[in-house]
């Protein structure tokens, strides 16, 4: 990849975070966070509500600048190359980031154009097929169920084939079918896309996890995978 910084190249990390802190007013949400993930890694990020998981994800997506420290995503510094970072990242947040008055197809077509994809119509149709929403492509996003909107949000995030996928509680509120679609997509992405998945229910995505961390007191702590495995069984 062109433009990769020396630091990331040397470390071989696809996501590299060092001494990262973020304050909101006096409150320090993240403190001296350090993280290194190789390409294709699958990180489960756990933690209580308000622990700073979403803040870390938003910083990695170049949606929020850190107060101090540095982070590189896909070889690009989030401060100096935010556009390149955004091009490399697919992000699913708490809300689907879809226009409720546009149809499912119009929403994806809009984002396909914004990412400059070569054949936006074909890519839109392909992604609608992938999340099993082809039959609802002409329905307004606001008329879709919560699970369908979440599937559409995942299609939006994957539209430009990102090398990094940041998912903030993607299983939240999903029915079995929607969860199964998400399982299938994560199965396909695991190993070829670097994934950071924030969740309160680690059992389901544990099968793909290559690392597990917990955000506590604004810091990242290793989490015992065996305990989680035992819980899953």
């Amino acid at each position, binding site marked *: 990849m062109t433009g990769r910084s020396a630091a990331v190249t040397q470390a071989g990390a696809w996501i590299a975070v060092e001494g990262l802190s973020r304050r909101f007013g006096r409150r320090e949400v993240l403190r001296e966070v350090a993280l290194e993930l190789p390409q294709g890694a699958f990180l489960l990020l756990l933690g209580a509500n308000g622990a700073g998981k979403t803040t870390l994800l938003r910083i990695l997506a170049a949606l929020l600048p850190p107060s101090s420290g540095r982070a590189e995503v896909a070889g690009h510094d989030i401060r100096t190359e935010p556009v390149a970072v955004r091009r490399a990242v697919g992000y699913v947040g708490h809300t689907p980031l879809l226009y409720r*008055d546009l149809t499912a197809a119009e929403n994806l077509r809009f984002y396909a154009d914004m990412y400059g994809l070569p054949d936006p119509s074909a890519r839109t149709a392909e992604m609608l097929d992938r999340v099993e929403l082809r039959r609802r492509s002409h329905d307004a996003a606001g008329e879709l169920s919560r699970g369908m909107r979440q599937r559409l949000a995942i299609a939006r995030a994957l539209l430009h084939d990102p090398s990094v996928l940041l998912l903030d509680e993607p299983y939240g509120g999903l029915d079995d079918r929607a969860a199964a679609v998400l399982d299938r997509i994560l199965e396909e992405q695991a190993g070829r896309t670097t994934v950071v998945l924030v969740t309160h229910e680690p059992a389901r995505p544990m099968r793909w996890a290559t690392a597990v961390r917990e955000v506590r007191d604004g810091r990242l702590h290793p989490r015992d995978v065996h305990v989680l495995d035992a819980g899953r069984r």
Partner: protein
Amino acid sequence: MAGRQLIALLRRDLLLETRRLQTVLSMVIFAVVAMVVVRYGWSADLQGPSGASFPSGDTAPVGEAGPTVGAVPAAMLWVIFVFAAMLGLSRTFAHEREDDCLDGLLLCPVDRVLVFCAKAITNLALLLVMQVVAIPVFGLFFLEGSAVRLLVCTPVVLLADIGLASVGTLVATMVLHARSRDLVLPVVLLPLLVPVVIAATSATAAIVDRGAPLADVLGRLGFLAAYDAVFLVLAWGTYGLLMRD
């Protein structure tokens, strides 16, 4: 790619607006109702510079006193336009807020200036749609026989609208994250629009009332063009910073 992104942004804004028609309808209704109120509730007190009163039923010398617009109705016209514009400008980022799509937009690898251009062009289009309805109503109510002179005002309207749309979009972005943005927007925006209103009012009055040719109001047109240029350059230079979290 920038051209394609700009077209995509414009198409999205226009699709969203045409699906609901909330903004443009509220602007049109406000402008027309305000003119009706002035026409039938206040017209007897309005005097043109030649002393002819505005047409008000059987006491008005409709179409006989020649041009009947003075500075007051021209100012009224532009004040109505500014407040109608405010209705649209306050909804500049309404869809991004309602649907929580601002993050989606910020995630896209798009030059923020293109977002400004799309929003400003959309606001300009909404203004023009409102004026296509409101200006004939103004002509019908206040000019009657000389309404055709309003056509000469087209460059004034276009230049003033570009100013309204560009400054309005800039300020709407500045207050995007403010809690009381609906209150803050007019407080910040209206003082900035005073020069536009004064220049547009005097140019409109000169053209429609005195029948002055465009050449006679070139100074005011030049002022409006300079105002537009200043704020467009300002937006170009600062919009990336304004759109950051």
